[in-house]
């Protein structure tokens, strides 16, 4: 009887396992190394600075995850972005199994609508919804909006401010009034990352009463704009010595322009930004850039892993939690003891050759996701 029951239970289990599999997800399949390669697309604005590094990380991680990684840059125009993504998702030749993207200029909802219509799942990362967006949480209004990974931008903004103030005090860069005068190079006002970083900045400023913000420059992530703003700031606010930049790119802009004008870092000014791009590492180490916080470009790898797992039947969503994740950011100053093992795109390719990113997959390793860059950089 027991044997009979065991046989019946085993048969029922096999039956349920076989027939329930197609109903767990749109393209969800049982994980197996033999399953055909996934086709994942990454949509981003311009292939420069942060996004260039970000998509490079995705590209180097893809092979070990058995993913065909198609990287698409749609340019600066939000309108072009929509048309471009629609075309890719609706063309059978280019249609991916899933895609990763960021909420560029608050067009996230439109992209999610297209994804829903094209029946392609997506993960949003890096730049999440702004307070003005209304597309809701993942798996709610748009079921194929699978998850959201964003860095702790507010903390990054806060940390950057604190470290810059600390450095300014160290270098005695106070103005004649004894206060530290600071100029802010903002990101886009329609970017949640920029909003949150500014929020962190404001929090830090409130904690330090000897700080005077001379001006917030709406530099829109733009290096050239940051350069112009620095020139203007120099004329308008001779007392301003600290230049807070919402991105490394803009901090480099300030640095380059300052050097052109004969200004010396740590004497005439200090600057710092967010992103911790590989290329900036040397500038931080030699003291030209006071601080850089970031390395969250590795979020592209985490997004790929999540999508990989989902499409292979290992859904990362837990019943009790929303599929919203925060990645941790690294901080680098000239005093940092450890540095990133990469300083260029070539370094990234070399570095990635020795890493099997599939081991970060929950399907394979059964470990929880850490969303920490340190996990990838072994020597940190």
């Amino acid at each position, binding site marked *: 009887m027991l044997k009979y029951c065991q046989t019946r239970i085993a048969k029922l289990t096999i039956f349920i396992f076989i027939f329930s599999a197609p109903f767990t997800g749109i393209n969800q399949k049982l994980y197996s190394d033999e399953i055909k390669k996934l086709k994942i697309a990454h949509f981003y604005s311009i292939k420069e600075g942060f996004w260039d590094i970000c998509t490079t990380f995705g590209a180097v991680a893809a092979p070990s995850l058995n993913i065909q990684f198609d990287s698409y840059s749609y340019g600066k125009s939000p309108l072009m972005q929509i048309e471009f993504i629609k075309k890719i998702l609706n063309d059978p030749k280019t249609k991916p199994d899933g895609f990763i993207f960021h909420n560029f200029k608050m067009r996230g909802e439109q992209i999610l609508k297209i994804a829903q219509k094209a029946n392609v799942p997506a993960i949003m990362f890096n730049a999440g919804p702004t307070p003005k967006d209304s597309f809701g949480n993942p798996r709610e209004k748009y079921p194929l909006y699978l998850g959201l990974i964003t860095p702790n931008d507010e903390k990054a903004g806060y940390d950057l401010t604190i470290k810059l103030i600390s450095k300014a005090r160290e270098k005695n860069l106070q103005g004649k009034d004894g206060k530290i005068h600071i100029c802010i190079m903002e990101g886009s006002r329609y970017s949640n990352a920029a909003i949150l970083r500014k929020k962190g900045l404001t929090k830090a400023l409130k904690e330090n009463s000897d700080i005077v913000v001379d001006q917030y420059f709406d530099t829109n992530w733009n290096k050239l704009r940051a350069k*112009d703003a620095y020139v203007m700031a120099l004329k308008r606010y001779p007392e301003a010595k600290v230049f807070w930049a919402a991105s490394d790119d803009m901090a480099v802009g300030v640095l380059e322009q300052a050097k052109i004008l004969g200004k010396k870092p740590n004497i005439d000014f200090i600057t710092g930004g967010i992103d911790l791009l590989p290329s900036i590492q040397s500038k931080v180490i030699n003291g030209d850039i006071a601080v850089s916080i970031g390395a969250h470009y590795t979020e592209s790898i985490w997004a790929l892993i999540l999508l990989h797992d989902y499409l292979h039947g290992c859904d990362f969503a837990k019943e009790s939690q929303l599929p919203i994740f925060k990645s941790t950011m690294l901080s680098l100053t000239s005093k940092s003891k450890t540095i990133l093992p990469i300083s260029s795109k070539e370094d990234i390719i070399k570095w990635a050759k020795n890493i099997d990113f599939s081991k970060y997959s929950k399907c394979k390793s059964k470990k929880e996701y850490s969303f920490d860059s340190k996990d990838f950089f072994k020597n940190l």
Partner: protein
Amino acid sequence: MKTHSSLKWQILKKVIIVHGIIAIFLTLLQLKLNYDTTLNLIKKNLTSSYDMFGPPLSQAFYHANLPMLEEIFQGILSQEDFLGVAIYDSLSNEFISRGKTQIDSNILLKYISTEPLFFELNDKSNTIGYQSPIKILIEKDKKKYFGNLIVFSSKDIAFKRNLSTVYIVFFNSIIKAIVLLVLFILLFNRLLINPLTQINDVVSNLSSNNIKSLRLNLQTPKSHELYTFQIQFNKLLDDLNYAQEQERLLQHKSKCIAIGDMIGNIAHQWRQPIATVNMIIIVLLEKQELKTLEEKELTEKLLEIENQNKYMSETIENFLDLFKQNKKTETFSLYQLINSTKNILKTKLENNNIQLKLDIPENITMKCDAQNLTQLLIIIFSNAIDSIINKGDEYNKNIEVSVQKNEKTTIVIKDYGTGIDKENMFRIFEPYFSTKHESQGVGLGLYIAKKLIEKSLHGHIDVENHPNGAIFKITI
């Protein structure tokens, strides 16, 4: 008609000149108005520049978005009237200028204010400018002044723009003036020239005898001044017609009187020969009855009757000559004419023992209507005779006739009658005025005399008193 055309063209000529002046004046006025309007439009564009470009420009400038700043500059300078644009950064005390008009920053600083201000530069370029403060929203409900937007234009733009339209404006004014002129001509013709032509036609026909048929019918509205004129004029025509009727009646009466006088004179002339013939007949009848009539005496008496008959016939002839209708201008001996007139009045003169003395050279000739002059002289002489008779002075019953010959001929008739009272001196030529007894006249003699001398003989008659009577002077 020619007079009217002349008047018409004179008025038209003046109207054309006035219209020309008005056209030029209107052109200048229009150009001035256009210039002011264009300048105001330019000023309005300048003042509204901040509304158009201020917000993005202030954002771009404040945030050092230089590419956008340049785009906005280009946008401002692409405006037709804007020649230059400058931005003043109060934080760095610097100017950024673009465009043709670049003003020295030291000059511009004079006009920088935190309040909007329109200004004109007192230089040859006729530059006008408008500066408005740029304020940026730093925090919620908190704006910060950090600079000024200054835009430039020039009065020359308004001038040049209007200069290009001067021909159109002038042509427009000319067209308007021509249209007005045509309308004026039409109205002028309808309201003034046509009525004037009609009035002229009526007035030129006034000399004709048919005033009764003349009537002014201008067909103007009752409110028109010419309508009042028409009524007054037609009333005048009625008066003239009445006067003409009266004149005609008077002439008829005068003629009747003249005929009466003639018959009276004939009667005077015939009384004596008829009485003589009667006497001869009575004598002849008595002698025949007594059988004492000899053949020779009969022949003599018959010849005498024939003579008396002949005299009477001549008298008739003389009077008939006087009233002949085919009167004409001719040259005649004045002496003979006055002597003939004297013969007509011979009986009246002789019956009253009045001497008509002629002091006239026989060789004086005159050229005029002799019959009318004779009729005139008869009237004057008859009046003189009546006046002498009325006076009743038995010692001086003379009428003296003399002639003064200069450029014109003056016949002076001096009588020794009653003379003319001073108060009647100016009335004696009026019709129906007479100082004589009703049985002697109706007061038309001297009136007829005046008409004859003025209308037929084209001369004039004067009268004055001398201590013993009156002097009539007929100048022809």
